[in-house]
């Protein structure tokens, strides 16, 4: 669409208030009035992503991979099937690949072109993942980004950045922290953070759960 400040054929077509809250409210009213959307369907969609889908799903996958070697192998061989086996399927998770962090390899996921992210296992992405600083720098300066996140990697560790250019979504299988040998799968699930499954941090035995 041409960009022309002299007419109203702007991308947003709008003389509506600039405040997005008001514009979205006006848009919803219009679409409901035209019969194009059912507000109850909107409620159900929001409920799904606010309550049912989130990084706890991914944490359960990771904890199982740490405690069930056969599952871990299936996850690394065919993540789509292994994750579906645990019941996590849906939009933005149709084609999954799991990549394993080790003492010598650190994986980190980005989408430089937009904001592709594995919704069924991690929920909707955090703002930093969608931000220009992360999208621009993850591919050219992954060590600098990780350093800002508090993770200094040795120069002999290989960093593998995964730029999500297709509909394939990547899940990082973080290293199991030392000192967690006696924990069961539920306790391990509590240790796994969202950011560790993006490859933005390493886990410690005293994690804060899958919120971050």
């Amino acid at each position, binding site marked *: 669409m041409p960009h022309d400040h002299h007419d109203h054929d702007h991308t947003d077509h709008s003389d509506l208030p600039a405040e997005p809250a008001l514009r979205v409210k006006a848009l919803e009213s219009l679409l409901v009035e*035209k019969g194009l959307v059912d507000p109850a369907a909107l409620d159900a969609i929001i409920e799904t992503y606010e309550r049912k889908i989130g990084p706890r799903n991914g944490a359960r996958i990771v904890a199982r991979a740490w405690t069930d070697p056969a599952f871990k192998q299936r996850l690394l061989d065919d993540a789509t099937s292994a994750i579906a086996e645990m019941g996590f399927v849906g939009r933005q998770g149709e084609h999954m690949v799991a990549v394993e962090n080790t003492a010598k390899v650190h994986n980190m996921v980005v989408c430089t072109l937009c904001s592709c992210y594995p919704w069924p296992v991690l929920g909707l992405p955090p703002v930093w993942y969608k931000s220009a600083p992360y999208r621009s720098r993850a*591919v050219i300066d992954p060590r600098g980004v990780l350093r800002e996140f508090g993770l200094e990697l040795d120069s002999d560790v290989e*960093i593998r950045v995964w730029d999500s250019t*297709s509909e394939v979504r990547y899940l990082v299988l973080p290293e199991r922290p030392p000192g967690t040998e006696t924990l069961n799968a539920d306790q391990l699930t509590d240790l796994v953070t969202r950011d560790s499954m993006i490859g933005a941090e390493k886990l410690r035995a005293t994690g804060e759960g899958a919120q*971050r």
Partner: protein
Amino acid sequence: MNGIHDMGGMHGFGRVEREIDEPVFHAPWEARLFALRHAMGAWGKWNIDGSRYAREIIPPEDYLRMSYYERWLAGLVTQMVDVGLVSAEEIRSARPARGTNNVTPALAPNAVERVLARSPALRDVPAQPRFRVGDTVITHNINPTGHTRLPRYARAKKGTVVRYHGVHVFPDTSAHGHGEQPQPLYCVRFDARELWGESASRRDGVHLDLWEAYLAAA
């Protein structure tokens, strides 16, 4: 297109700021807009590639000023008007045009779960992949004005095929109504030094999923 959305490798955006205990949505309107997008998508008038392109054509100065969901709003309005689900006048006035027929919503509440379940890009069509894992490939130097998933930083670069993903919908045609034209999709590893020069780590690499049309044998 060589748009502002194609950010890989750019400088000047500053530090990555992480928010502690971040909510799924930062305001109710973000959630309503997110849901509106899905509900309107159920009309089947566009696909994910076209939706991405509708955000890519936001003028760069606006793109950088807008929040993530403001871009979604702009893209949704563009698409709805383009396909005729609403008119530009209706968006301006926030009122249905006189005489328009009320329709039945495409997405009923009891269909939400099914609609959110799956929308795969893999296509079950026969194909003879030209490349195999381990092959060295070189990306084409293309600069299309339309949608593409080959970022600028990875054009005319040499890499190694590390995985074959099967036959996937081709975004460059799909975004513009030119059909899915499914074709082999590969994961290609590029050494960081191939992309960024000698100052990059010798060990590190960047992986991109690339369609066969982007690749030539090296």
